[in-house]
């Protein structure tokens, strides 16, 4: 999937993945897609909950050898 920007937060513990994702998202415009690479397992529940609360859409999610990748479309 094509993304507008890639954010690498691998190795960062909670809450940094969401903090960084939010900051990166604030700089994008509606319809842009942010690709986030994260290893903190907490992101599996927190990222969808955060996206849902802020109106963004997770359009794709994969997990390959403990790296979780989210493609998030900005609202």
């Amino acid at each position: 999937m094509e993304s507008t920007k890639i954010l690498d937060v691998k190795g960062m513990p909670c809450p940094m993945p969401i903090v960084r994702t939010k900051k990166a998202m604030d700089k994008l415009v509606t319809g842009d897609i942010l690709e986030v690479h994260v290893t903190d397992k907490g992101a599996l529940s927190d990222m969808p909950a955060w996206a849902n609360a802020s109106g963004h859409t997770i359009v794709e999610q994969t997990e390959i050898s403990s790296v979780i990748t989210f493609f998030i479309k900005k609202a």
Partner: protein
Amino acid sequence: MTVNKMTAAEVARKVIENKALFILDVRNNDAFEDWKIEGHRFEYLNIPYFDLLDGIEDILPILPTDKDILVVCAKEGSSLMVAEMISEAGRDVFYLEGGMKSWSSYLEPIKVGDLTGSGELYQFVRLGKGCLSYMVVSDGEAAIIDAVRFTDVFTKFAEEKNVKIKHIFDTHLHADHISGGRQIAEATGATYYLSPKDAEEVVFKYTPLEDGLNVKVGASEIVVGAFYSPGHTIGSTSFIIDSAYLLTGDILFIDSIGRPDLAGLAQDWVGDLRETLYRRYRELEEDLIVLPAHFMIIDELNENGTVAKRLGDLFMENHGLNIDSEIEFRQTVTDNLPPQPNAYEQIRQVNMGKITPNHDEQTEMEIGPNRCAIR
């Protein structure tokens, strides 16, 4: 204002001493609804940390000024971040060291009572998970029942009491938490007993726990007697200690009864559960004090923090002991069962010795409430 750390041990004292506390839980709503720190006089506000990234001004007016505020999250990081924001706004605030992970792990030893001679009985209350373990101490020796996996808590306690751990029992093969029994036995040379009926797939050596087995602890006459009481599992065994205490495992709790389905055989074992609760236990002395392997709700704690109640009182008050119709009983314990404990199938595998997860994986498996009961 300052950000202060509060340990799980300090939170436990507040639960047991009925102190007030305001908990700002910053995990997401599902996690909070599923499982939280329970206290008689605790108040709660659940706002996920990611809803507070733009500032905490909105919640400042609803934070109380007359009691401690504790920010809680899964591991610690988010609670520290939110606590720092609250502190910068000029308020005193605590965060929970190690988060819900450390809360799930914390054990508080509380004395239940004195036994014959100089003997003592201790209950180890794992408040975060609702697990209860026991240690009988007498004349330089100790027996442990249903040890959880934090083995050093038991070995250190035995050292402090200057006793040698001789016997270790599990009332059944647990499905909600990882047993520490085998590890303590290996470390101390104690005998580890398990019911052969629960241990068919177990891959390590153990000593068979049979109905009627009596073990003496110390030189005095404190007898720990095994009493076969199937129903939660087919091998479930209760213990009568010093003719005064009845350890019921996961068969009978203070305000609920055991569920028969965690090994996948609800229909087969419901008859055993009925037989144990309505006939086998009825033949025992009503003055025995029931000590279960779990509590589910904070109301089951006594004023001193123990979980214990007279058997005769449970016959009167426990709903699960007062279902006259066998058909209704069967329906109650096989239909509409609550969700199973987190990772219960994996936990059973660990307790059989079939898989050996590392420390972090074990912590992850045990997250959440125990869910062993039917109310």
